């Protein structure tokens, strides 16, 4: 594992920038991958990981900057081109054809020929030999989907490496694997590293990152936070880099000290949980209170939000509003109880892109009123105009399809949709992600206003500084469990990072890595 420090980078990106309407997805990012290196790429959703990968693999064309492979500037036009240049990618969702055989998947597009026809026998023999290099003894003539996801993953890797052979990008390869399968995959990765490939490893499982990677690059909000050798970094420092808090510097803002609340909470959730998604938790939310929720991606934040809004249903426990039990078996139940929910994935779970700003704003209220009680066109217009003015939604008019608005303005339309229903409890999952700076500040101000107006809010955010600004309390989630609740003086980014990071788990992967290497 002793890398020669001055070994020239295999793949290098310099001053890479990429913008989308309303957001700068990558801003002057530099990145270098050496040969024989596993380089982890980390960051929360929207940090720019996937944009960086897509620029490297030609799925996106960069706006500015340079990409150098073996010291030569390249400009991949599409993924196929990148593949030919030597950059192969394996995605979380295996991008193979499950109904073809393993061998056909490996050689699709360049099958071994005999007399102008594909020779299945040779193809299967070649496939067997190829897979043997990966320690995989399976029958290549069988259909791909008769094997586990882990095996499919390795087949995808084998295909990518045989086609490209210089750089391998693994995008969340372990997301649907169990511990044992992860071990097997790591064995394969280490083998490829020994063969001199440069491997970019994307995962949000920090244990795995520490176990397999040589260096770590962290992105945040489209910008490079830093690249560090894994040996020089610990969990605490890494989480700090990801969630954007240099502990050494600057004033530590404390949250607005919560009034000592002795009254009973307006909303009480007791023992709510769902097997496999989130461990049972208790949560109280008072009127006029913002409860922040901090945790890494995949920690159970979104699962908590979806549980409370009735999206996933819950196994046990009870929800009470003003002391009376409420049913939360579906979003309709939650809406009827006065809940509102701003999902994290705005594009596919939030906006109805082809419908107008007006229609998007009235939708939740209309759904709650039922189809018989149509909101009159005049009132719809008045509501839309009112929210466009109040939230400063930038649109030419209320009839513009919401999909044509910028991210920040779409988010405001989503907020307007819920505010129109006059909710008593609003759940916001990453309300400020992927939106421009101006809209960002406005949404934070709005959260404070709503809270002052007596509304209860649960706000999930990866921006710890932001949580400090508006949260009365912060719940910390780790490994699908609510692990800590910070109140008053303790609502600081530092405390949150500690709660997210600790305790250092004995890594199952690290232990076995010694036996392999």
């Amino acid at each position, binding site marked *: 594992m002793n890398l020669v420090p001055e070994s020239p980078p295999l793949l290098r990106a310099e001053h890479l920038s990429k913008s989308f309407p309303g957001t700068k997805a990558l801003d002057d990012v530099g990145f270098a991958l050496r040969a024989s290196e596993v380089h982890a790429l980390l960051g929360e959703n929207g940090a720019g990981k996937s944009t960086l990968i897509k620029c490297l693999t030609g799925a996106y064309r960069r706006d500015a900057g340079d990409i150098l492979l073996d010291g030569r500037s390249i400009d991949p036009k599409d993924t196929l081109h990148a593949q030919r240049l030597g950059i192969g990618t394996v995605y979380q969702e295996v991008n193979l054809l499950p109904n073809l055989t393993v061998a056909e998947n490996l050689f699709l597009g360049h099958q071994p020929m005999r007399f102008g026809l594909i020779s299945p026998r040779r193809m299967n023999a070649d496939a067997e030999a190829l897979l043997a290099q990966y320690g995989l003894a399976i029958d290549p003539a069988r259909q791909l989907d008769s094997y586990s996801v882990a095996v499919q993953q390795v087949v995808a890797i084998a295909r990518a490496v045989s086609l490209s052979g210089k750089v391998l990008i693994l995008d969340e390869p372990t997301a649907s694997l169990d511990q044992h399968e992860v071990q097997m995959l790591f064995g394969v990765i280490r083998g490829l590293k020994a063969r001199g490939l440069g491997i970019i490893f994307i995962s949000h499982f920090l244990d795995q990152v520490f176990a397999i990677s040589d260096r770590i690059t962290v992105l945040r909000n489209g910008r490079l936070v830093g690249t560090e050798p894994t040996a020089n970094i610990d969990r605490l420092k890494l989480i700090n880099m990801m969630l954007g808090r240099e502990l050494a510097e600057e004033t530590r803002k404390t949250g607005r000290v919560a009034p000592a609340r002795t009254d009973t909470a307006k909303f009480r959730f007791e023992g709510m949980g769902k097997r496999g998604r989130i461990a049972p938790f208790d949560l109280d939310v008072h009127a006029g209170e913002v409860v922040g929720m901090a945790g890494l991606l995949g920690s159970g934040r979104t699962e908590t939000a979806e549980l409370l809004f009735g999206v996933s249903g819950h196994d046990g426990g009870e929800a009470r509003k003003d002391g009376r039990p409420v049913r939360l078996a579906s979003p*309709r139940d939650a809406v009827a109880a006065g809940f509102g929910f701003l999902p994290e994935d705005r594009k596919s779970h939030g906006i109805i892109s082809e419908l107008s700003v007006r229609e998007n704003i009235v939708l939740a209220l209309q759904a709650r009123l039922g189809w018989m009680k149509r909101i009159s066109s005049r009132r719809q217009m008045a509501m839309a105009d009112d929210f466009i003015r109040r939230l400063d939604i930038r649109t030419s008019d209320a009839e513009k399809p919401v999909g044509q608005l910028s991210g920040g303005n779409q988010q405001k339309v989503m907020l307007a949709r819920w505010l129109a229903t006059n909710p008593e409890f609003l759940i916001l999952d990453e309300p400020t992600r992927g939106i421009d700076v101006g809209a960002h500040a406005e949404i934070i101000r709005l959260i404070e206003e709503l809270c002052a107006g007596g509304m209860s809010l649960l706000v999930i955010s990866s921006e710890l500084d932001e949580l400090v600004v508006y949260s009365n309390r912060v719940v910390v989630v780790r490994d699908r469990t609510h692990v800590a609740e910070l109140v008053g003086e303790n609502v600081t980014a530092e405390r949150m990072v500690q709660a997210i990071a600790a305790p250092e788990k004995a890594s199952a992967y690290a232990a076995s890595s010694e036996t392999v290497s």
Partner: protein
Amino acid sequence: MNARFLRRIAPQIATLAAVVALIAFVFPGFFDISLANGRLYGSPIDILNRGAPVALLAIGMTLVIATGGIDLSVGAVMAICGAVAAWCVRQDYGLVSTLAVSLSAGLACGVWNGFLVAVLRIQPIVATLILMVAGRGIAQLITEGAILTFNHEGLIFMGSGAVFAIPTPVLLWLAMGALVTLIVRRSALGLLIEAIGVNQRASMLSGVNARVLIVAVYMTSGLCAALAGIIAAADIRGADANNAGLWLELDAILAVVIGGTSLLGGRFSIVASLIGAMIIQAVNTGILLSGFPPEFNLVIKAGIILVILVLQSPALRVATTFIKPARSLR
């Protein structure tokens, strides 16, 4: 609102006008309309009358397609409901109970499709394919393999009668189209259906009861198909389980597509679909009138429809937007 509505249906109106003009050019007697036996006769009336089944199917199909679904079973449902109606009158049921039983059969078919799509979450094209195949079998069981003929005045009136000189089928599809359009646009159904069609997940997260609405649109489609089936049976005074409504599901889908509603769901216009149905029937009638040998019919029809769809295609729209500014530069 009105200007926007006109702009929405303008391409369909223009297409219909072009097709009619073409027919009138080939067949000068096209616009001759006469009154005989208290009923209007003539080619335009014939188009309106013959187009009734597809027009009715297109009403329900528009709503189904707007939710992002499709209903392949409507032709078979026509056969079932026609058979049910014929069976009823042969059992000496009155007209009202015959219609009630037959329309209920259509609604039941809709519930079945809706259940498969909304509750079991089977892909609509597969879910409705089941009834498309099985439906003809069910209809054959009802007719016991024969063509069930009948001579019931009331039922025959549904197919070949006239009210105020206008053929009953024409009134039926106009009334059904107006009724469904009114219900959908005067209530919030239109908005909710479009929301589901564009993004079902987001709609459900906003509290929209997508499941119930999806069942409702398939029920509407079943009801429209039942009415079309009754007309088709009444027209030939018998229920033909094998041929009633055969391939009409495809014409209905085509009518919706010509009407400009995306097969991916979302924005819809029933009026535009109805004009689409009339365009298809005008093409059918026009080919017959123009005196081409009948064996050319299907090929010519396909050719004309291809032209219509190409004219409406987004690719062409993009091309014309590139051409226009270039011209204005001169």
